[in-house]
């Protein structure tokens, strides 16, 4: 029989191992970015960053258009977030609250899009976008990404709306709200934590997306960070520590943003409105 103290130690060890597993690759990306190129191929690897190499980051911004890439990724991500949320709230409400002919079709259609690989739709989307003059534009990328984000977040928001008691909406109706007033004035504030979570998901999708950004945009000054980073996987290209530095610059904001946004993903605002 193990003592509870031993168990406690084992648990701490397990947690540390798990966190190490989760965080190590990102740490290693950072270390590699800070390893002077002469040491990169040394026989024993450098396990700690060489802080003297911090200037690599300043250098990166001077030699590689990282700032533009990040700006584009941000615009795509922010656009995707706004458009997706705008598009998702009303159908989510309809899915949760109405019973109408076509409900099942809409529900299934939203789910089915989860099964379509982006790679499959690139060609037809390219020709549609060509006709719409959307190629080589940030709005074009936003539209393409939104098509893949909206279904997911519609389901998520629907789930949150499901948990709002009908009585609250009925109270609003008695108080003189129209259906639109209810969605905008009651439902949206009540599902705000879920909307925040949905926004995080949308933002990440936009920030990370690669296939569309690679094909639907060709202008160098509209290139996103994902494509920019992938472009290093070529020949005659940039040294590995610069590549890793760009990787860090691209990854870190996402991680920090996520750690920050996590707080908002904790729901529970309806607690107390109904029952004891």
């Amino acid at each position, binding site marked *: 029989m193990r003592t509870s103290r031993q168990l406690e130690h084992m648990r701490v060890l397990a947690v540390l191992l798990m966190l190490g597993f989760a965080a190590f690759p990102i740490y290693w990306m950072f270390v590699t970015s800070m390893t002077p190129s002469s040491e990169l191929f040394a026989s024993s690897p450098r396990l700690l960053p060489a802080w003297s190499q911090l200037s690599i980051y300043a250098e990166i911004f001077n030699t590689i258009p990282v700032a533009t890439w990040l700006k584009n990724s941000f615009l795509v991500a922010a656009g995707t977030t706004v458009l997706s949320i705008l598009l998702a709230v009303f159908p989510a409400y309809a899915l949760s609250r109405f019973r109408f002919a076509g409900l099942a079709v809409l529900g299934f259609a939203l789910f089915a899009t989860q099964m379509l690989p982006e790679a499959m739709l690139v060609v037809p989307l*390219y020709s549609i976008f060509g006709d*719409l003059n959307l*190629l080589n534009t940030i709005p074009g990328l936003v539209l393409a990404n939104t098509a893949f984000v909206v279904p997911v977040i519609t389901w998520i928001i629907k789930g949150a709306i499901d948990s709002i008691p009908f009585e609250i909406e009925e109270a609003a109706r008695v108080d003189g709200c129209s259906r639109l007033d209810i969605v905008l004035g009651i439902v949206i504030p009540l599902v705000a934590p879920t909307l925040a979570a949905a926004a995080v998901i949308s933002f990440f999708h936009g920030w990370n997306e690669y296939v569309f950004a690679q094909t639907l945009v*060709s202008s160098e000054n509209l290139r996103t960070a994902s494509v920019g980073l992938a472009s290093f996987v*070529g020949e005659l290209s940039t040294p590995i520590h610069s590549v890793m530095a760009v990787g860090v610059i691209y990854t870190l904001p996402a991680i920090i943003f996520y750690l920050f946004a996590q707080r908002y993903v904790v729901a529970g605002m309806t607690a107390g409105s109904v029952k004891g």
Partner: protein
Amino acid sequence: MRRTVNRLMAAAIAVGLAPWWAAPAFAKDKITFAAAVFAEAGRGDRVKAWIESYNQSQTGVEVEPIAIPFSSLANTVFTQMGGGGGPDLIRLDQTDFFAAIPSGRLLPLGDVINDKDYPFLGPDRFMKVKDVRYGLLFDTTGYALLYNKDILPQPPKDFESFLAAAREKTRDGTFGYAYRATMAERAGFWQDLCNYVFGFGGRWSDKDGNLTLNSPDVIKGVAAYKKVYDAGVTPKGADAATYRRMFWEGKIAMNVDNGGVAAIFNRNAPQLPFAAAPSPFPDKAQGLIMTALVVNANTKHKDAAGAFIKWAYAPENQKTLQAAMGTSVGTRLDMSPEEQAKQPWLRVYEEQMQNALPQLVMGHEDKTPEIQQIVLEQVLKVLLENADPKDAMDRAQSLVERRVLR
């Protein structure tokens, strides 16, 4: 039909989307030029500067360079061309060039440029298919053995001594040789493989265009590739970008590579004492890299593209381009003795050019990407799973016949 539906839907939602952005209006005729070279360290900026000098020279046309990484250039550009768009000008790799011709995606250039006005280099003849010109030779180079004189004072003369030297020089983080052997670097793998196959007398097809993937000489080349692989003289896992950097940092003794790479070595490490020699293979034949400057058939700026082409092939501009690229460009240029002396390897490459063959499956130029994929997968089986080279190439031959030539 599809078009019509597209257009209708386009019209329907264009109204709704119109305020999203204002269509940019350009005073100049703006055309785009996509090439992988713009993204390359060392050469990219110089070639971009070359284009900028064109933009400065006149007010009618503005050329915007678009850098697309080599590995995704064909995918990206072909998708865009298929969708009815794409850049106006493209520098296409030879395999992609031939792939694009049958589908009518390249604009015939017979009326843009008069052959006789330009002293094109020999490989330019490949730019014409059935007497129709689909592109212009943009840059070209052959292959030769590059070696670091600090590590290896004398170049090996034959394959055996080459292998022995490579073995001898592999120690303490230094490697005797480097080449590509992964699908992640499919195009480069193919180029390196072509050098071995050609170097051992093999050809992918005969004069009549019949496939000869399993001919004895091809198999000899593949076996040699495997021998090098097993010798443990290469930095496995280092991609070309990495091992080329290692070369100029003095960690690689030898490398069979093209003239562009030599230029990069020189530019990144001017003091590096490297030299070029003929490749150490029995047959003098080596691969030939060439790229074509083509005009997208979807272009709406044919005249602007033509104007740029005429400028690009003017002798003085070709000279600047040559300096930027470090390889031969489309036309023959005279070089002063001083320039020759500064870049002694250029002569070697020039001489090797005589024996150079395009890295294509002649007679099936447009099918080369598919054939290349199958051949490389079979060669990988030889390298990784110790498959018998003959069996593997027999299989490649039959797979290609079955899948590609169906």
